[in-house]
């Protein structure tokens, strides 16, 4: 209905290969960016910024990473949180042990370290597939948990293993207020999302999808299977590493290893499933959903149950609803919210015709 595509024709491959070839989509994206970069930091309350938007964006980056690994390359992983904690601790140690290192370089290095660890745990993916690979990534999860609690060097010998992130300064400008932290994370998320989108529409993305859909055929075409899988593991872990670093520096400030446990990996896995495997938008939709749904649930339950709830009952019910939601999504629309959005868009472009 909103689309007015008549007269929008493309005369070059550049125009045809664009991420948003239709003007209406470009306008919508531009407005979204303006709202995100200008309106939100000015208008949103500190609570909304720190409690909702910051975690949403930070986790969305990790979800982007998992989406590349599982959505595009089809390699199943339950170890996302492990790579996040590697990123967080690496960033902390870089800031600690390398005086004067610029913040952004720290994040990149943290990402690279996580990518390195990702490659190591990606090696087995050549010989083993499916569930077994999930178990291998579980090994990463437990091993990293154990490493950061047991080896004190990482947490600069702090007794409980928790680390306090150094204050953030970029080119002399302290990034302390919620708005500034939000803008930092938002810009990093935008850049990484664009990079992921570009990868998905070029040879790398096609190689991933080829390996995901039918690796035997991919090999016969000449796609190096192991290299493609490792690149996926590396880039995915890079995203998780950056996300972990941002979690420590921009969101919480102090981080203990338990913050990146198996529950975190499940949370990001749910985000990618509900958001939509194999789509960049899916990561953001999923992360927004996972953070907004408990608030919505809380509000609904208070409407129904007047009396004060037994402590902890709310979080139990939340668990039940999340579990049920996963099943509902898998039955109704296995490709998640992004697919629902895609169907709506297609219908709008064809409106009023059904096909």
């Amino acid at each position, binding site marked *: 209905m909103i689309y007015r595509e008549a007269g929008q024709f493309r005369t070059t*491959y550049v125009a045809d290969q664009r991420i948003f070839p239709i003007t209406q989509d470009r306008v919508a994206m531009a407005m979204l960016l303006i709202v995100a970069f200008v309106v939100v930091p000015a208008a949103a309350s500190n609570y909304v910024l720190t409690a909702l938007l910051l975690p949403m964006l930070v986790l969305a980056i990790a979800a982007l990473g998992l989406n590349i690994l599982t959505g595009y390359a089809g390699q199943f992983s339950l170890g996302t949180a492990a790579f996040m904690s590697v990123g967080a601790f690496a960033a902390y140690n870089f800031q600690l042990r390398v005086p004067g290192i610029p913040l952004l370089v720290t994040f990149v290095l943290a990402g690279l370290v996580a990518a390195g660890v990702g490659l190591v745990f990606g090696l087995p993916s050549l010989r083993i597939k499916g569930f077994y690979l999930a178990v291998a990534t579980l090994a990463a999860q437990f091993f990293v948990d154990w490493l950061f609690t047991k080896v004190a060097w990482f947490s600069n010998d702090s007794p409980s293993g928790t680390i306090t992130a150094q204050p953030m300064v970029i080119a002399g400008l302290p990034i302390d207020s919620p708005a500034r932290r939000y803008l930092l994370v938002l810009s990093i998320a935008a850049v990484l999302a664009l990079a992921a989108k570009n990868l998905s529409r070029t040879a790398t993305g096609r190689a991933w999808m080829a390996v995901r859909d039918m690796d035997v055929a991919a090999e016969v075409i000449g796609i190096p299977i192991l290299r493609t899988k490792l690149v996926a593991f590396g880039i995915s872990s890079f995203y998780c590493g950056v996300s972990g670093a941002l979690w420590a520096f921009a969101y919480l400030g102090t981080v203990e290893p338990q913050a990146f446990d198996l529950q975190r990996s499940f949370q990001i896995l749910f985000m990618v499933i509900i958001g939509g495997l194999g789509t960049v938008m899916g990561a953001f939709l999923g992360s927004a959903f996972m953070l907004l749904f408990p608030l919505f649930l809380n509000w609904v339950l208070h409407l129904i149950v007047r009396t004060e709830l037994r402590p902890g009952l709310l979080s139990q019910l939340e668990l039940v609803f999340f579990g049920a939601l996963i099943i509902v999504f898998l039955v109704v629309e296995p490709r998640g919210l992004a697919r629902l959005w895609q169907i709506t868009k297609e219908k709008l472009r064809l409106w*009023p*015709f059904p096909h």
Partner: protein
Amino acid sequence: MPAPDTFPRLLIEHAQTRGDRPAIREKDLGIWQTWSWKQVLDEVRSLACGLHTLGLRRGETLAIIGDNRPRLYWAMDAAQALGAIPVPLYQDAVAEEMAFVLSNAEVRIAVVEDQEQVDKLLEVKARCPLLEIIVYDDPRGLRHYDRGLLRSYDDVQGVGRDLERSQPGFFEREVEQGRSSDVAVMLYTSGTTGTPKGVMLSHQNLIETGRGGIQRERLTADEEVLAYLPMAWVGDHVFNYSQGHVAGFCVSCPESPDTVLTDMREIGPTYFFAPPRVLENLLTTVSIRMEDASRFKRWLYARCMSLARRWGPAILDGKPVPLVARVGYALADLFILGPLRNVLGFSRVRVAYTAGEAIGPDLFRFYRSLGVNLKQLYGSTETSVLVCIQPNGQVKLESVGTPATGVEVRISAQGEVQVKSPGVFRGYYKAEGATLESMTPDGFFRTGDAGFFDEDGHLRIIDRAKDVGRLHDGTLFAPKYLENKLKFFPFIKEAVAFGDHRPFATAFVCIDLAAVGNWAERRNLPYAGYTDLASQTAVHELVRGCVEEVNAALAADPRLKGSQLRRFLVLHKELDADDGELTRTRKVRRGFIAEKYAPLVEALYASGPSVHVETQVRFEDGRTGMVQADLPILEAMIVEDEAARRAA
């Protein structure tokens, strides 16, 4: 250089004044390949020089056969630059029809699109001794063909560039010799009246009429046009080629005949021309697709369309409309009408013409209520089309508008429409007799259509002059008028009426396979194909309903009340140009049909319940087969007088 009064000079002027703006586009390899006016001039210059080297001389003819392709339009420019006459042929014509035109126009050189056309030419080569050279554009499949006869388009341009280098300025000198009175193009009429004849139109004919149309509708160089109609038809030539050269706007060629709808949506033309048949097919697809929509969408569509039908035309004409209606229409436009225009590719249309045959009131009102500025137009190949045009704001259902700029229109004693204008043609090629016969002594062209001027000075066309007949009791019998009324139903694709020198009016009816098929599927009525569907009694009842509705409408007009259809039959096969029953542009060839199906016509006037028929049919791949069926003779209710009609 004098003011540009020939197409090559116009081309050169555009290349100088707006050299970088797009002149022509073609959807190929997934994107719209574009050529600016400068690039078109270079391409035309090298092609013209190449054709000259092949021996094309001033006054000779150059055949052009294929879908709408930039390279074929350039062949027209190149021929005109050398003073030769381009002769575009219908790309889906069978080999025999091509043979007649090629020999009649004494064609020595032909520029064709692809292997399909080359094969047709090779098939008729024996009967066209003059044909020496075939220039092809798409080399697909032609690697092992006889090199003597065939030249590739690129090689010809290559040779042309050599000539340019050896004789710089050759092209400009040839263009210099062109006169506006030279013959710019020869279009063969579809010959509803006897054998096809070559209509010679000069540069002056086309440029002045074109310029008149452009000024009247204030068209500019920014128009976007989709060239999807056959290049051999005057509709394509005037609105795309000549007006494109005069106004300097860009002509876009679709990827292939079956992607026209998507290409239409992508280009979003601002200036559009379509014969009623194209508009009718579009409306049928709209209604079929809407039938499959969800209940809510169908309800919303029905509500918005009924509101649009009531107020749309008035709003489009700028007439006063109550505020409530205007708000209602705006909402309908937001939800249904706007998106519908967008999906069909009509959002940017400023001026849309329809001509070639009468258009049904419902069909015409549908597009105007949709907010598309569709206007009726009257004209013929011999008058470079633009004779009468409906002015903006005074668009009526039955009339074809007021005379175009510089056009005199009068009605002869016998009721025939006659025209005098700068667009009147230079005569039929090698047919002096026919030319004289078609002109009046004082220089008016006899259109052969019967009509009259209504009170607002709008011309109304009722039928072909020679077809208008009389029933036994003397009442006027206009077969085309009846047929058009029948064809305005989506279920009826074609109809042929009989009644001249007969006691009452009768008709053959051909159903529309898509629409009736969809109607049958909705009632899960199984059918195995066209003939089977046409023989079903349920379908006969459906057609009877349509015929009786036409009778009711005829009863309202005192002059036509007597010619209500008393009996009709549903034909067992579609009328098809390949069987000679229709012309290339799908107009009914009444005489041929009356002769071929004489026993059926007699049966309509006899008392028997049905008639057996066996006819030869030509299939797509050229094989022929026999189709036979028993066609029941069906009665239709006659409305006696006004009161009875209102009661029914």
